[in-house]
């Protein structure tokens, strides 16, 4: 082999510090979690496919819509906070994160009420519909709690954007997860709460 080989570009950009590995790991984690929810929705329809009536009774959806409003608001607030941090105002970012946590806690409070009412009509052990209904909404609640813990942890950190302490961007990564959990609730409201009420 006497062909002259072109040297590849090798100049090391010493001043550029890598900060995206954590973000990429979070995105892949979100992807695999999204597939997990997808599998549960598939199970929901698969079970419904072999049932004579599905769901046996359409679920009441008023509280689910209130919860949806809370989560959409929390995502907007968090996004605003991130943009403040991008322009160097970490204090405002922290305030927005705290507000997001409050909205998330409010969501859980309303969900407790919703479960309290719902459990009087339907239980996880009633039938397969009850099992999958509480599995999907319960798994979402567990994800929401994890998201809250992430955001609370971010508030404890000395540097929420990873500017001074690389290699990760804590607020950005936690908020990606939070937006994902919010998005899942949108899908749950559409497929599990609204669709059965619309189609009959």
């Amino acid at each position, binding site marked *: *082999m*006497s*062909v*002259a*080989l*072109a*040297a*590849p*570009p*090798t*100049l*090391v*950009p*010493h*001043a*550029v*510090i*890598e900060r995206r*590995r*954590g973000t*990429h*790991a979070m995105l*892949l*984690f979100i*992807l*695999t*979690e999204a*597939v*997990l929810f*997808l*599998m*549960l929705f*598939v*199970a929901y329809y*698969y*079970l419904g496919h*072999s*049932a004579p009536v599905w769901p046996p009774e359409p679920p009441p959806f008023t509280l689910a819509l209130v919860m949806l409003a809370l989560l959409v608001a929390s995502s907007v607030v968090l996004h605003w906070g991130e943009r403040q941090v991008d322009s160097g105002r970490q204090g405002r970012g922290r305030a927005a994160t705290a507000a997001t946590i409050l909205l998330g806690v409010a969501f859980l409070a309303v969900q407790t009420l919703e479960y309290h009412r719902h459990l009087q009509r339907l239980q*996880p*052990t*009633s*039938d*397969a*519909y*009850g*099992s*999958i209904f509480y*599995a999907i909404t319960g798994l979402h609640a567990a994800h929401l709690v994890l998201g809250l*813990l992430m955001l609370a*942890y971010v508030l404890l*950190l*000395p*540097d929420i954007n*990873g500017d*001074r*302490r*690389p*290699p*990760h961007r*804590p607020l950005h990564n936690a908020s990606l997860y939070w937006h994902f959990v919010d998005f899942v609730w949108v899908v749950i409201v559409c497929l599990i709460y609204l669709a059965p009420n619309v189609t009959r």
Partner: protein
Amino acid sequence: MLNETATRLCALWDRPHTLHGWLATVDHKEIGKRYLVTAFAFLVVGGVEAILIRTQLARSNQAVLSPEAYDQIFTMHGVTMIFWYASPILSGFANYLIPLMIGARDMALPRLNAFTYWTFLFSGAFLYVSPFLGQAPHGGWFAYVPYTNAVYSPGLNMDFYALALLFLTVSTTAGAINFIITILRMRAPGMAISRMPLFLYSTLTVSWSIVFSLPALTAALAMLELDRQWGTHFFDVHHGGSVLLWQQLFWFFGHPWVYIIFLPATGMISMLLPVFARRPIVGYAYVALSTVLTGLVGFGVWVHHMFATGEPQMAMSFFSAASMTISIFSAVQVLAWVGTLASGTPVLTTAMLFALGFIALFVIGGLNGIVTAVIPFDWQLTDTYFVVAHLHYVLVGANVFPVFAAFYYWLPKITGRMLDERLGKWSFWVMFVGFNLTFFPMHIAGLLGMPRRVYTYPAGLGWGGWNLTATIGTYVLTGGILLSLINVLRSRHGAPAGRNPWNADSLEWDTESPPAVYGSELIPAVATRHPLWDEFDEHDDPTHDRALDHARVTLMTSVLDAEPVAVAKMPDDTATPLYLGLALSAVFAALLVKAMWIALGAAAIALLAAAAWLWPEPERDVV
């Protein structure tokens, strides 16, 4: 100047030689070695279980094992081999080799890497508590309901199965995420995606498969546990559940898993076979493409495990066609290997023998796989020993034989010592003969109607001779494996390997054997697919720009062209991944016995461990 660089790199990357240093290390080479040793130990345990199974079946009406013990042992054999040996051994090679193959100093997320090893180890230990309680899983490795629900399978047996596997999915998912980021973003400058070693293609493909398929297993196992312990009705037909839901979810995960434990093995063959054929692989692009396509189409074949369950005709035809399509991609790979051999000048080393043995077994396993993809044929043979023969030709033929090839090829890099070729060749032939003696007769026993999973059989059905042959074959196969084990132990006094004993082409052979703790002094640069076979000097760097010896850092490059884009700060050693793994073990143990407050407390400790793990290190000048 190079010596000075080496000294500084050593100071940055070496760990204290204490117990804590050993537990806290995040070095991919140490973690890779631990993976290899642990997974091999699971192979030995699973092998002992296989010997027990075959001893019981050697003749009709034997009573070596009771029916219940037989059920537990064949289930543990399957679960151990498929989940705790076949995939983790490949993760071991990938962990050790991939950073060296791409010239990086470590994996992208070294602490996560340590965490994947600890959770792999602890989940396996969790599973192996069960035999000591006499309550090992006994529902087969795919654990069909209703047999595995709380009514027909009381006791902790299947709870161990479900929770140990759930625990393992944490490890497998984390590992896959780490491999994807490492392979896509940390390749040496110039190692464009079109120059990537083929082992990276296969590991990347299966890592994506894991991200997309493993959640189906997670969902199925969680539902099984909820049904068993908390009275839900996912799989309970009396309350609107469906037993087929388990099968759908399990096989949606299960068939991609077959490729997850097979594709990286073919990737290793595509690395070492050309080296011993003394030429670049024929059809690199086709091999890469068929690897990716196998992973992709692997998601569209799962129903071929369920042809006997009464699916709609249209769906069955689709899945039958998809299953046959996949054999085209496998055939492309086989043709590339044969073409490489035919046009090269092959050297028959032990590694090469194992590679050739693999190709032979894989072709048989592929052919009897095609016939089982034909629906009427499958109806005749499903749940017989024919299927057992098929799956062992594919899994042992296409996982164990390539893994042994890989050991004979890469162990000199890892230990710095050559293995004995003479003993190795003996080991190969004994294993090859033993393997075929064991599994070929099972085709015939299956055609004669012998069902799988029976703990014994009556005399006079014509099965006795085939079963006795299979049992003798198992002992021969075991002898062959022991010869290789002796070979490895004896290699402590073997000849020193030097940097590149096989005159191979890929970057890991450019490091010392065993490699220095930091890999290579300068991050290498690459100009072709075969860096060590071309004229380009990977270490041509007069200004020492690529030494990166001022801090614990490595180089990040762009996804497609591998142009340098940033310097990545790598984390210090820490034992927090170990603590997190221990806390999670406590969570799963508490879930097993439904001690929910203890589970909650252990989860809180796990969160604290994670918080300590993620706490940013003190500011330090990395620029």
